[in-house]
């Protein structure tokens, strides 16, 4: 199922960084972990030593209250405050430095992708220098390897969060506000991401895929996505197209090149070119597609798509048509 030349889908993990952003996040994670571990061990040691010393004093019969004389208390408080401040400053400094390195946009004009988070799928619009070159797809993002990509994040409904752990940290999609995040994939591969901010009933099944591929392959993919849908030539596909246009599908879905232009649901112009459907919930196979069309509520209860009762021949024709939309 995966194209040759790509690594298999990586373990979706912060600790397997494949890009400079994720690498910095990983480094920060290890730094925090190490520092915390050291501080923890020191604290445990100090605690053990204090308890041990008290026990020894007790055994020796000294009065314990004499041990808590004022000068020692002040010194202790001063040391603790100083140590805390130093560590705080260290963390602040590191945070600022990491923040600075994560946020700036590289000087040359990066590929810009407008990502809009809906309940519960991702709308991906590729901005182009000319209006005509723009196109829209859903749930699957292709980027060229080794080049910085700028994401503009928007949401029309609730707060979502864009998280592809292998490539970058989380960034929220906040209604009424456009956020930006940039990242870069250094290795070709298939990366899984998901929504990282609870956004409703199917937040758990709101995944996406980022495919990082060589520039030439990316151009090929982008050129294909700019084209309108392939014309339905054979009778079964034509019938499927008719089913699509005369039934409930046109109320929510768009297929460029037909009269279907509704943006309520994902754009289906090149549905057959995607690896998964339903925001990464199901593989893009005929059977899964059939199950999804007929009863999406069984797979993702509460999702916006209603069940559709179709006659068997109509469903068959519709599936043939949808699978022809490469």
């Amino acid at each position, binding site marked *: 199922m995966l194209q040759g030349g790509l690594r298999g889908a990586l373990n979706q993990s912060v600790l397997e960084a494949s890009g400079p952003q994720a690498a910095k996040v990983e480094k920060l994670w290890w730094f925090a972990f190490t520092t915390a571990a050291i501080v923890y061990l020191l604290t445990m040691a100090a605690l053990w030593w204090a308890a041990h010393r008290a026990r020894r004093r007790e055994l020796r019969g000294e009065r314990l209250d004499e041990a808590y004389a*004022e000068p020692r208390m002040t010194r202790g408080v001063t040391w603790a405050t100083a140590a805390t401040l130093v560590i705080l400053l260290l963390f*602040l400094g590191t945070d600022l430095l990491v923040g600075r390195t994560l946020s700036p946009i590289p000087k040359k004009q990066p590929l810009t992708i407008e990502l809009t988070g809906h309940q519960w799928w991702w709308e991906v619009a590729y901005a182009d220098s000319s209006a005509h070159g723009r196109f829209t797809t859903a749930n699957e993002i292709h980027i060229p390897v080794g080049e910085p990509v700028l994401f503009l994040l*928007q949401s*029309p409904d609730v707060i979502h969060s864009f998280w592809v752990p292998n490539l970058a940290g989380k960034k929220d999609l906040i209604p009424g506000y456009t956020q930006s995040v940039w990242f870069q994939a250094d290795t070709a591969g298939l990366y899984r991401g998901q929504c990282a901010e609870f956004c409703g009933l199917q937040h758990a099944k709101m995944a996406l895929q980022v495919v990082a591929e060589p520039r030439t392959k990316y151009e090929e993919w982008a050129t294909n996505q700019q084209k309108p849908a392939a014309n339905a030539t054979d009778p079964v596909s034509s019938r499927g197209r008719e089913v699509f246009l005369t039934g409930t599908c*046109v109320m*929510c879905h*768009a297929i460029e090149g037909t009269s279907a232009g509704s*943006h309520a649901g994902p754009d289906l112009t090149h549905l057959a070119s995607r690896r998964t459907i339903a925001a990464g919930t199901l593989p893009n196979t005929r059977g899964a597609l059939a199950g999804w069309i007929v009863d999406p509520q069984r797979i993702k209860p509460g999702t916006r798509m209603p069940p559709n009762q179709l006659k068997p021949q109509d469903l068959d024709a519709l599936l043939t048509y949808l699978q022809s939309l490469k």
Partner: protein
Amino acid sequence: MARCGPEASYCRRQALTFVTGMRLVVVLSVLPLAAACTREGKPEPPREAAAAALPASAGPRASVALDAEDGQWAMPMKSYSGIRYSQLTEITPANAKNLKAAWTFSTSVMRGHEEPPIVVNNTMYVLTPYPNILYALDLTLPGAPKKWQYEPKPQSEAQGVACCDVVNRGPSFADGKIVFNTLDDHVVAVDANTGKEVWKTKVGDINIGETMTMAPLVVKGKVLVGNSGGELGVRGWLKALDLASGKLLWTAYSTGPDSDVKIGSRFKAYYPKDRGKDLGETTWQGEQWKIGGGNVWGWLTYDPQANLVYYGTANPGPWNPDQRPGDNKWTSAIIARDPDTGEAVWAYQQTPHDLHDYDGVNESVLLDVPWKGQTRKALIHPDRNGYVYLMDRMTGELLSAEPFGYITTSRRVNLSNGSLEEVPDKKPEVGKVVRMICPASPGTKDWQPSSFSPRTGLLYIPHQNLCEDEEGVEANYIAGTPYVGMNVRMYAGPGGHRGELTAWDPIAGRPAWKITEKFPVWSGTVVTAGDVVFYGTMDGWFKAVDARNGAPLWQYKVGSGIIGQPITYRGPDGKQYVAVMSGVGGWAGAIVAGGLDPQDSTAALGFAAAMKDLPDATQKGGTLYVFSLP
């Protein structure tokens, strides 16, 4: 904090440590806030029309070559130049106060009457809004009885896809036939004497949201018509039909590749921003031009010497601009075409990538102006975006573009490159409410046509003074349903009055005088050689004012608000008559014509909010009024 007691030194040291620590925390927590502060942009100073100058100056005047006055009114504009000027002189500022109602006629339809009656061969023809009944009235008999009526019986479902009331802007007379459009996309030719249908051609489809409301223009045996539907994702076009047979001769689309827009070897855009190949396709994302709007529902004018037809195209669809990136050519543009073949000779897009429904369909009145020592063949076009454009009608070059209302959405029109310098703060976005957008979506002036008097040299512009708040929403294209994507709420502009009649000096580029009205002046104007201007108000006053200085002369209260185009003609008895339709409606009067509920401020695309007091001021109606001196 407790004060330090007997063990003072220790306590004080504790307190000191605490205080230092707190100060450090405060300082550290304030640092990120400093970084988060943004600099607020300075608000743009709004544009306003220059203060009114002295009444009609003795300076240079625009002129028009006038046809001989025959006392008729054969098409809504009266003449191809669009000046709506009558050379009849019986009614003057001295005697206008004596005007009396001569007779009236009920159309039996109670929707918005935007049309004028037309008068040819002592017969008056009245075309109603849907169901588009055409009446012929015999002016030679007392009381002008009905000769015949013709009912095209348009499909009733067409009412559901008409954006702004089921209006019709009038019929035209040509070669013994009365030609008009029906709401359900038919062009009809009826014999002017007998009322029998000569031909009826279907040119559009209501199932994609297409309707027709404009008045056709007949030029050299061709009937030129355009469609409506920019609010339903309908692709705009201008079609020519043969006057004798009704056969379709050519179609010029407003969007799409050059072959569809009929941009060929003769085409030369004056400004570089309008030059390029297939701009009607490349300035849209993907295939959005197919549902892009650019309809032709406004006024067409014609220059017989240059053999050019001038018209404007409407707004791009949807209203939500983020869904259609690019300049969106050729919407909100002025186009000049050769009527024989339909090919475009020049075009100028006054509002690229329109943000506020600033259609470009307003009239382009043809004048000759003395400009910087030369006489230029010009056109004057008061646009929705708030500027009066004075342009060379042979090439599309801008001579001047001055504001005639209060504008916050743009700073100016740059005459060197033709661009509209917009204010970025006023761009609507999904989920964000942008306030004080002036002019509001109906523009500083909507469809209501102006008139020009060669005697005073002034253009009499009826218009409105409205501002609005806009909030973008995602629009879904479902064929035959609205494709808008905007919540709008309108209200009166500065001054609190919602309507104005401006007497505009085309050469000076500023008003000579203005009259303010409570409601938008949604009716047309007519001006006579007797120096009287007639117009109507939405609360039902038909008014006459002095064309030289705006002094009120006479007014008459009719049964329902006036949104129609007044005309004047010579009756069979030699007297001068003035006629106007009364019957409120249209987009501005939808709250009355449609019985809308003003609790919802977004009703009627936001207009209901600005017209909450209209139902108290007028009722629905449908009556023709004719006035004359006793």
